[in-house]
């Protein structure tokens, strides 16, 4: 067991190493060492600056943040990074915190948050964007993509004539591709010939001008090869990284506060604050109770459905779905209670039309400031402040009873909703059956 764990951690280190090499190859400055990633997982404070630098460098390279934003580690600079992350669609608590929060000590930012943000950037395709940019810089023979005339798609009809035309055009493109490929082969061959001729006649300074161009070209191609190799290495092990990232998310969920313990409340004044926070957690947990389960049922049904209507129903792959699902959980943990728990863009309309639970949770909220509420997920087992005494306290047994009652209610509601969703899905499948699917 120990050994496997050790080998896993070694593997993770190698994988992160591959990522670091790739990041460096695409031209990102100040890439931290793999070890820093590991420490950042546990919220190490020393790594924070490194990750600020890394994020800012990535965002600048990707053109999300203007390069004038600078690289000094001021508060202004961090604002830029936060704004850049926000633009890429990432939301987290710490982004909304004012700088003043720092002084008060209520700041919840740790290097893990930055690591998660990095994970988001990677998952949302920033890496591929950077890679494409870099390849275009290095390979001067590449044609930049011509803006495609999209009016064709508007008037496209799925009759046989259009289909044949499309097949013809596809074939034509394929032939063009083969012609380009053979041109590339010839170019490589010639370049090789020139290169080897250059090597054999080293002292030919007369042709210095042409040989500088050639040398530049040669070094560009070498860099290109290294870059592509780094990307290849990364894609082969990417899966391990995402598994590790999942563990980071888990870590984030189980121990959300790293710096909090440093501000241990000393009196009743603090109790209120922490008590509210605990309540919020609890409420959040209750909110999640039905939705998480809905989510599960939904996923399992979706996999079945996707066999038939994969491309039509959702464009999300199940992996992405899971990944985003996790991010979702994390977001909610972060306190975005405005959404009813689930990202509407991620769900089909009928799931997001769930009946909301707040009424029930409100009932519980007043009384549940007790230890050991009924827990459905171990990950939320954090220390609700036991020393906190509040006037509206209930006996444990009573609270447990109430919670059990609430649970039954919720379970019933969940079953009903599940049933409704299933019928709805079946109807939808019935409708989709009539469609003819054309394989890509």
């Amino acid at each position, binding site marked *: 067991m120990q050994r496997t764990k050790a080998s896993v951690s070694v593997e993770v280190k190698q994988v992160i190493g591959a990522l670091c090499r790739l990041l460096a190859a695409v031209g990102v400055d100040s890439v931290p060492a793999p070890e820093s990633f590991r420490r950042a997982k546990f919220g190490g404070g020393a790594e924070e600056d490194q990750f600020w630098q890394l994020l800012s460098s990535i965002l600048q390279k990707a053109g999300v943040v203007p390069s004038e934003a600078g690289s000094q580690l001021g508060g202004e600079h961090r604002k830029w990074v936060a704004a850049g992350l926000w633009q890429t669609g990432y939301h987290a608590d710490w982004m909304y915190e004012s700088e003043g929060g720092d002084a008060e000590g209520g700041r919840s930012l740790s290097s893990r948050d930055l690591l998660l943000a990095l994970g988001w950037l990677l998952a949302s395709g920033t890496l591929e964007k950077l890679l494409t940019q870099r390849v275009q810089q290095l390979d001067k023979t590449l044609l930049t993509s011509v803006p495609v005339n999209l009016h064709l798609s508007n008037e496209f009809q799925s009759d046989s004539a259009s289909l044949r035309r499309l097949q013809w055009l596809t074939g*034509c493109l394929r032939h063009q591709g083969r012609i380009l490929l053979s041109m590339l082969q*010839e170019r490589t061959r010639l370049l090789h010939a020139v290169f080897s001729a250059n090597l054999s006649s080293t002292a030919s300074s007369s042709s210095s001008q042409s040989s500088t161009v050639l040398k530049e070209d040669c070094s560009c191609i070498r860099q290109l090869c290294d870059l592509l190799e780094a990307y290849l290495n990364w894609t082969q092990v990417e899966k391990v990284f995402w598994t590790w990232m999942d563990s980071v998310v888990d870590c984030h969920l189980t121990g959300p506060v790293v710096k909090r313990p440093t501000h241990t409340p000393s009196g009743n004044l603090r109790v209120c604050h922490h008590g509210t926070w605990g309540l919020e957690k609890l409420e959040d947990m209750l909110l999640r109770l039905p939705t998480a389960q809905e989510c599960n049922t939904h996923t399992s049904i979706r996999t079945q459905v996707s066999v038939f209507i994969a491309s039509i129903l959702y464009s999300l792959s199940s992996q992405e779905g899971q990944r985003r699902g996790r991010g979702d959980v994390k977001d909610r943990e972060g306190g975005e209670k405005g959404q009813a728990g689930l990202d509407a863009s991620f769900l089909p309309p009928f799931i997001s039309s769930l009946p909301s639970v707040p009424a029930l949770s409100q009932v519980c909220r007043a009384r549940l400031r007790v230890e050991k509420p009924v827990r459905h997920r171990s990950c939320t087992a954090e220390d609700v402040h036991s020393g906190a005494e509040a006037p509206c306290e209930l006996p444990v047994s009573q609270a447990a009873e109430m919670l059990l009652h609430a649970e039954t209610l919720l379970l019933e509601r969940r079953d009903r909703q599940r049933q409704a969703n299933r019928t709805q899905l079946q109807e939808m499948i019935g409708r989709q059956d009539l469609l003819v699917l054309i394989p890509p």
Partner: protein
Amino acid sequence: MSVVTLQLGQCGNQVAHQLFHVVCSDAQNAHKKTYRAESCERFFHQNTHGELVARAVLVDMEPKVINHSLSEAARSGRWRYGESSHFSQKQGSGNNWANGYCVHGPRHRDVVEELVRREVERCDRLAGLVAMMSVAGGTGSGVGAYVTQCLRDIYPTSFIINHLTWPYGTGEVIVQNYNSVLTLAHLYQLSDAILVHENDTVHRICSQLLNIKHISFSDVNRVIAHQLGSVLQPALTTDSHGVYSRNPLGELVSALACHPEYKLLSMCTIPQMPSSSIAYSTFSWPALLKHLRQMLISNTKMEEGIDWQVRPPGGSGRSMGLTGGSFNTSLANLLILRGKDVYSAETGGFEDPALYTSWLSSKEAFNSWKSPVPFNKYEKSATLVSNSQALLRPLDDMVGKAWNMFASRAYIHQYTKYGISEEDFLDSFTSLEQVLSSYRHLC
């Protein structure tokens, strides 16, 4: 930018030999240096003695034709075949496709592949492979189909074009239609484009245009070689920006055969006349192109006997000529003009959308290549390579005859004993019926 030619079987060897002859003499007679250099690089390489050596691999199961070709080429003094780029055996395939495809092909696979590889490695850049063969016999068709399959495996992204000679309808070999059906069905999956010459058509050209009394195979081959040469010799294409195209086969295929269901290309050239009369004739581009256009739409393969009544369909349906010939719809056409004042030639007549299917615009369907260098002594000449319904009828006849024989299971045992089952026959029939149907419904 070079083309490697595979000469397969008796017919393939003879036609290809003639092609090299035509190409070489055309290049050496040309006054333009770049044209000559480009043509030579395309078809020949130079050996240590400075002689032109054809980029060709000769394969036959009998030694006779290959030996003849080798000595003929060497005797010409202009070019020769490579010392060791040929392969032959003592025993032929007996006009049996199955024998060639199932026995000879696999048995000699390694040797042939090695020969081709050597030729390919001699090229700075491989433009593609041209496999030349007949469809009627055993070696050309059977071994040819097998070798094409191997080449497709080894060179998946290279352009592979097959040049096929279709037999006389009256028959040279009793099982020619079986062999043809099996060959075509197999090549249709493998080849990028299939260039077809029908012996009947070429024979008529020999007798009516060239006034040859006793027509031999070499006369027929010379006509085929002339037409092929006019396509494959260097030309300025739309993509080549003022220099000779570096990618003749790729551009040919891109212009004509982008759709996997339509790969059959037919050819016609104008003018064709006895060499003695060329000196006394004058040609004008408008007249040549007018004739060529009418040859295309009335599906006539030579200048004589053109049905001038056939017109492209107007708004309603297709119009019929008075003699009953129907309009020949094209999918795509490639016009190759060579000779004097070539840039003044007006090719607008071929850009008429009425000539083409409704689903491909004439801009995509029509391409033209030009070269100011006269080809093969003709002051002006035009060749049209066409992906059209022109081959529909002969193919239909071929498949029909083969099916009639198959229905009575005639000679089937000759094939099954080598491992070609009735199922294989049925598969081939099915795929050719699909081809026929695709071309029939081209409109």
